[in-house]
C-alpha cells in the first residue's frame, strides 16, 4: 500500500459559465420532451433535433472544459447549486451539480462520443419508422448520464443512475415487437435494479451515519465512521457498480442487451453507461481507501470479470456478443484499477476514456458490417469483407490494434498502466491481468480473421457494400481517437485527475515502459499468433453442435442464465405460486369458510322462525322471565 494522505478537495461556488452547467442536462431533456410530445409531426426533422441535442451539449461541455483549464487547480472543482430536491426530517437532498476534472471528462466523453454516434444513427436508423422515438430515447439517455456524472451527491447520482437504466431498457427493447428484444430489455432493467439495491442501501447507511449523501460531506465524515459500516458501504457500492457495469455476478444482462440497435450498444453498452460503475467506485475512492476488504472485493470482481468476459468473447460467433464480452472484460480491467486505490483510479478513468473510443469505434464498425450483411451478426457468415468495406475495415483495424494494446495506440498506454499497477498491488492480479490481455489479443484476432479476412462465407443473395458517409465519418473520427488518445492523454491524465481521484507518487512518461509492459506485449503477440494460426483454417458456415466444455460454457454466457433460471425464475416462481396458493386456500379460504359457516348456522337458526307470532311472543316472554330471574336472583344473592 502507498502511504495515504487523504486530501479532499472542497468545491468552490460556481461563477461565470459554470452557473449554466445545468443546461447540459436540461437541453437534451427538452429535446426528448419535444420529440415525444410533438408526435408524428416531428418525424421529418426529429433526428436533426436529436443530433442537435448531443452536439449542443458537446459544445457546452467543451466550453466548460476550456474554462476549467483556464482556472487554477484548487478552484477547478465547482459546485453548481440548482435547487433543493427534498427535505424531510433528517433527510435533506439538494439537486446540485459538481463540475470537476472527473465529471467534465465524462461529460466530454458522453457528449463527444455521443455526438458521433448520433450522427451515425441518422444513417443506421434511416429506414426505421420510429427513428424520432429512437432519438428521443437517446437524448433521454444523454440527459440521465450527465445527471449521473454531474451530480454532487449520491441521491442525484441515483436519479441519473436509474435514468440511464430506463433509457437502456427503452433502447434495448426498442424493437419490442421482437420478443427477444423485449425480454432482453426487461432483463437488463431487472438485473440493474438488483444492483441498485446496493446503491440504495449505501445511501441509507450514509444518511443514517452522516445525515447526508453529498460526496464532499461523506468524504469528510467517512473517516469517523465505524469500520464495519465503511466496509458495508463499500460492498453496497460495489454491488451497484456490478449491476450497472455488468460485472460478475450481475453480468448476464449485457450479452442479451445486444438485441438493441447497434448505435445503442456502442453508446450505452460499450462507451458510457456500463462504465458508470467504474465512475461510482472512483468517485467513492475516499471510502475504499479506508476499507481494505471492500477494495479487495472490487479488485477480485474486476479480475474475475476480465477473465470471464474474455472467455465469453473467445467463444461467441455473434460479432456483437464478442464485443460485449470484450466490453465486460475491459471494464473488468477498469474495476481492477479502481480497486487498487489512488494508484489505479486515474488509470481506470484513462482506460475508460480510451475504451470509450475504440470500443464505440468497433461497435459502430460492427453495425456497419451488419448494415452490409442484412442485419446478420453471425461471424461464420462473414469473411473477406476487407475488400468490399475498406473504410470499415480500416477503422475497425485501428480499434483492434488499440484494444489489444499495440504501441503507440491508445489501449497500449491505458492497459499497460493497469497491469503495472496491479502487479505492484499483488503479483497475482498482475499475472491474471496479463493473461487477460493475451486472451483479448486472441479473441480480437479471431474476430478480425472471421469477419474481414479469410474466405467469403456470405449467405446467398447478400451483397455487402460500404456504408454511407454519415456512418463512415464518425468511424473515422473514432478511429483517430483510438489511435492518438493514448499518447495525448498519457502524461496529462494523472495530473489532471489527481484532485478528485487522489494523489499518486508515480510520474509517467509516454516513452517509459516498465518490464511488465514488455511482458504483456509479448503475451499479446502470442495471442495474436495463436488466433491467426487457428482461424486461418476454413471455418464452417454453421456452428458445430458438439464443442468442448470450455466453449460450451462460454457460448452459454458462463451458464449464468441457466443458473438464474433455476434459482430465481424457478425458485421465485415456486415461491410466488406457493404464496398464491396460501392466499387462495388459507387466507381467502378462512374468509370463505367463515362465510360458509355463518351461512350454515343461519340455515339452522332459520328454522326457529316458524312465522307464528304466538311462538315469537312465547320466546319473548321466556326472555323476560330469564332476565327477571337473573335480576331477582342477583339481588337475592
Amino acid at each position: 500500500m502507498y502511504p495515504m494522505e487523504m486530501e479532499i478537495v472542497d468545491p468552490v461556488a460556481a461563477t461565470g459559465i459554470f452557473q449554466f452547467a445545468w443546461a447540459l442536462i436540461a437541453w437534451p431533456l427538452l429535446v426528448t420532451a419535444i420529440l415525444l410530445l410533438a408526435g408524428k409531426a416531428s418525424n421529418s426533422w426529429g433526428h436533426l433535433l436529436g443530433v442537435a441535442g448531443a452536439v449542443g451539449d458537446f459544445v457546452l461541455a467543451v466550453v466548460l472544459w476550456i474554462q476549467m483549464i483556464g482556472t487554477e487547480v484548487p478552484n477547478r472543482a465547482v459546485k453548481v447549486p440548482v435547487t433543493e430536491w427534498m427535505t424531510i426530517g433528517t433527510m435533506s437532498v439538494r439537486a446540485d451539480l459538481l463540475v470537476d476534472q472527473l465529471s467534465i471528462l465524462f461529460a466530454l466523453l458522453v457528449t463527444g462520443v455521443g455526438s458521433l454516434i448520433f450522427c451515425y444513427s441518422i444513417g443506421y436508423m434511416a429506414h426505421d419508422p420510429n427513428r424520432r422515438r429512437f432519438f428521443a430515447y437517446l437524448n433521454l439517455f444523454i440527459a440521465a448520464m450527465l445527471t449521473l456524472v454531474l451530480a454532487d451527491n449520491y441521491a442525484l447520482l441515483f436519479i441519473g443512475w436509474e435514468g440511464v437504466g430506463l433509457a437502456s431498457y427503452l433502447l434495448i427493447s426498442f424493437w419490442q415487437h421482437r420478443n427477444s428484444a423485449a425480454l432482453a430489455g426487461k432483463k437488463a432493467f431487472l438485473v440493474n435494479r438488483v444492483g441498485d439495491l446496493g446503491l440504495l442501501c449505501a445511501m441509507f447507511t450514509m444518511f443514517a451515519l452522516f445525515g447526508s449523501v453529498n460526496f464532499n460531506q461523506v468524504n469528510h465524515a467517512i473517516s469517523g465512521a465505524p469500520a464495519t459500516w465503511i466496509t458495508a458501504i463499500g460492498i453496497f457500492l460495489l454491488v451497484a457498480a456490478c449491476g450497472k457495469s455488468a460485472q460478475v455476478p450481475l453480468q448476464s444482462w449485457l450479452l442479451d442487451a445486444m438485441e438493441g440497435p447497434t448505435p445503442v450498444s456502442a453508446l450505452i453498452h460499450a462507451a458510457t453507461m456500463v462504465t458508470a460503475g467504474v465512475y461510482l467506485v472512483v468517485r467513492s475512492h475516499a471510502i475504499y481507501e479506508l476499507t481494505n476488504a471492500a477494495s479487495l472485493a472490487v479488485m477480485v470482481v474486476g479480475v474475475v470479470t476480465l477473465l470471464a468476459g474474455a472467455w465469453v468473447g473467445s467463444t461467441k460467433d455473434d460479432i456483437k456478443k464478442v464485443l460485449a464480452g470484450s466490453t465486460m472484460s475491459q471494464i473488468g480491467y477498469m474495476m481492477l484499477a479502481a480497486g487498487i486505490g489512488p494508484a489505479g483510479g486515474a488509470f481506470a478513468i484513462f482506460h475508460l476514456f480510451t475504451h470509450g473510443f475504440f470500443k464505440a469505434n468497433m461497435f459502430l464498425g460492427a453495425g456497419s458490417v451488419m448494415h452490409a450483411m442484412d442485419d446478420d451478426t453471425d461471424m461464420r457468415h462473414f469473411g473477406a469483407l476487407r475488400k468490399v468495406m475498406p473504410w470499415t475495415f480500416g477503422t475497425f483495424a485501428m480499434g483492434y490494434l488499440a484494444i489489444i494494446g499495440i504501441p503507440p495506440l491508445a489501449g497500449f498506454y491505458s492497459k499497460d498502466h493497469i497491469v503495472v499497477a496491479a502487479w505492484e498491488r499483488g503479483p497475482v492480479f498482475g499475472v491474471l491481468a496479463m493473461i487477460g490481455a493475451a486472451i483479448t489479443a486472441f479473441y480480437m484476432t479471431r474476430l478480425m480473421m472471421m469477419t474481414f479476412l479469410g474466405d467469403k462465407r456470405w449467405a446467398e443473395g447478400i451483397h455487402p457494400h460500404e456504408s454511407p458517409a454519415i456512418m463512415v465519418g464518425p468511424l473515422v473520427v473514432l478511429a483517430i481517437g483510438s489511435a492518438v488518445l493514448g499518447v495525448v492523454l498519457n502524461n496529462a491524465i494523472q495530473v489532471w485527475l489527481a484532485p478528485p481521484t487522489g494523489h499518486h507518487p508515480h510520474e509517467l512518461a509516454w516513452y517509459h515502459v516498465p518490464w511488465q509492459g514488455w511482458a504483456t506485449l509479448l503475451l499479446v503477440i502470442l495471442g495474436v499468433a495463436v488466433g491467426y494460426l487457428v482461424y486461418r483454417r476454413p471455418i464452417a458456415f454453421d456452428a458445430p453442435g458438439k464443442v468442448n466444455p470450455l466453449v460450451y460454457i462460454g457460448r452459454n454466457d458462463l451458464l449464468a442464465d441457466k443458473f438464474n433460471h433455476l434459482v430465481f425464475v424457478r425458485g421465485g416462481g415456486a415461491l410466488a405460486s406457493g404464496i398464491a396458493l396460501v392466499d387462495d386456500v388459507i387466507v381467502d379460504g378462512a374468509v370463505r369458510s367463515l362465510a360458509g359457516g355463518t351461512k350454515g348456522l343461519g340455515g339452522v337458526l332459520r328454522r326457529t322462525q316458524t312465522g307464528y307470532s304466538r311462538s315469537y311472543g312465547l320466546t319473548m316472554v321466556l326472555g323476560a322471565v330469564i332476565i327477571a330471574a337473573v335480576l331477582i336472583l342477583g339481588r337475592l344473592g
Partner: protein
Amino acid sequence: MENIPMLTILGLLPLVGALVAFGVKGRAGRNVAFGFSLLTFAVGFAVFHMSLHSDLAQTVDWIPQIGAHYALSVDGMARAMVLLTVILTPLVLAFEWNNDTPHLAAHKTPRWDVNVFGALALLVEGFALFVFMSADVLLFYLFFEGSLIPLFLMIVGWGGEKRRGAALKFLLFSLAGGLVMLVALIGVYAATSAAGNPTFLVSEIAAIEIDPRLARWLFAGFFFAFAVKAPMVPVHTWLPDTAEQATPGTSTMLVGVLDKIGTFGMIKFCLGLFGEASQWASQLVIIVAVVSIFYGAFMAITSKNLLRLVAYTSVSHFGFMVLGIFAFTITSIAGSIFYMLAHGFSSAAMFFVVGFLVNRRGSAEISDFGGVQRLAPVLAGTFLVSGLATLGLPGTANFAGEFSIMVGAFRVIPVMVFVSVIATVLAGLYVLWAYQRVFTGEPTEEVREKITDDLGGRERAIIGVLIFLLLFFGFIPRFGASVSEKTATATMSQLGIDDPVNGSIGGK
C-alpha cells in the same frame, strides 16, 4: 374570509352536487356531477392554499351530552389528502364519462344511469373529505362508515359479472373493521369520561392519560379497522376481488382515496392517541408490513389479471407506508404521507390505463393481450410511465416517498429495510413483465380486431394530468414534503420520541 366555514363548504359541495346529479337524469346529470367535482376541486385548492396562512378549524358542539363535536380542521396530512381527493374525483368522472355505453364488454349492463355514478362518486368524495377533515373521532367514524355505502353501490352498479359478490365482500370486510373500531370508540369515550371530561375531540383525547392496558386494546381496535382499510395481509383479500369486478373508476376512488383513510387513521389516531401502545405494537406491525410488501409483490407477479395485479401492487405499497409509519422517525412518517399522495396518483394512473385496455379489449386477462404497442403506441407509453411510477423509478413521485420511508426507517430498523428494499426489484418484475406480456411482441389476430384505436383526446387529457402530477411531485417533491413534514413532526412530538440522530443505526 376568516368567518366563512370553508371546510364545511368544501365538504358539503360534493354532497349537494350528488343530490342534484341524482335528480338530473341521464348525461345531463353526469355533466352536472362533473361540474360540481370541478367546483370542489377549485374550493379544495383554495382551502389548500388558505390553510397555509390561516387556521380554518371549526368546532361546534354536536351532542354535548357525550362530548361529541362537529369539529373540522386540516393539518399537513389532511391537506395532502384533500388535494388528492379533489384531484382524483373529476378524473374518475371523466374516465367513466361514457359508462352507460353498452359496448364495453367487460362491463356488464350497468344497473343505473350514468348520472347516478356521478352522484355516487361525489358522495364518496364528500364523505372522504369530511373523514380527512374531522377533528372529532365520532364525526370521523360517522363518515368513515358512511363512505362505504356509495362505494358499495358503485361496485354493485357497474362492473363485471361477479360484482355483487365482490361488493358484498368489500362491505363485510369494511364493516367488520368499522365495528371493531366502534367498540374502541366507545372505549375511548369510557376512558375520557373516566378522566372526567367525556369528549371525542382528537386534541382533547390526546391530552388525556389513558390507562396503558386499556390504551393497547383501544389501539388494537383502531388499528384493525385501518389495517382492513389500507389492506394489509391477511385482511386484504377483498381488494383484489373488488378491483377485478368493479370498474376502474370505482377502484380508483377506492384505492386512490378511501384506502388512504387506513394509513391516515394510523397516523392520526393510532399514533396520535395511543403513542405508547403504538410503540408496544410496532414490532409486530412492522413484520406484518414487510410481509404485506412481499406478499403483495409476489401475488402481483403471479396475477393473471391486470386489475388484480394493480390491486396487489397496492397491497405491497401500503405495506411500505405502514412500515414508514411504525418506524417512528420524522423522515419515514413524512415519507409515508408523501407516499400516500403519490400512490393515489400512481394507482389511479395504473387503473386508468388498464381501464383503457379493458374498455378496448373487453377483458383484463393478461393472456388476452400481446403486441398492443404496435396498435396503440400512446397507450403503451402511458402504461409504461404509470408502471415506472408504480415501481418507484426516481423522477416519479413514488420514488420520493419510498426513498424517504426507507431512509428514515433505516435508522431504526435497518434489517427490515434491507429486506424490504428487495421488493423494489420485484416491483420492477411485475410491472415490466406485465408490460412485456401485454404490449410487446406481435399482436394476435384477435387483439388486432379489438384494439383499433389509440387513446382519444379525453383519455389523453386524463392520463396526461396524472402523469404530469407524478412527474411534478417526482422532480419537485419538496412541495409535498413540506406539507407532510409538519404532521410528522407533530406526531413525533405527540409520541414523545426524539428523532434519531446522525451516526445511529438500529438505535445504536
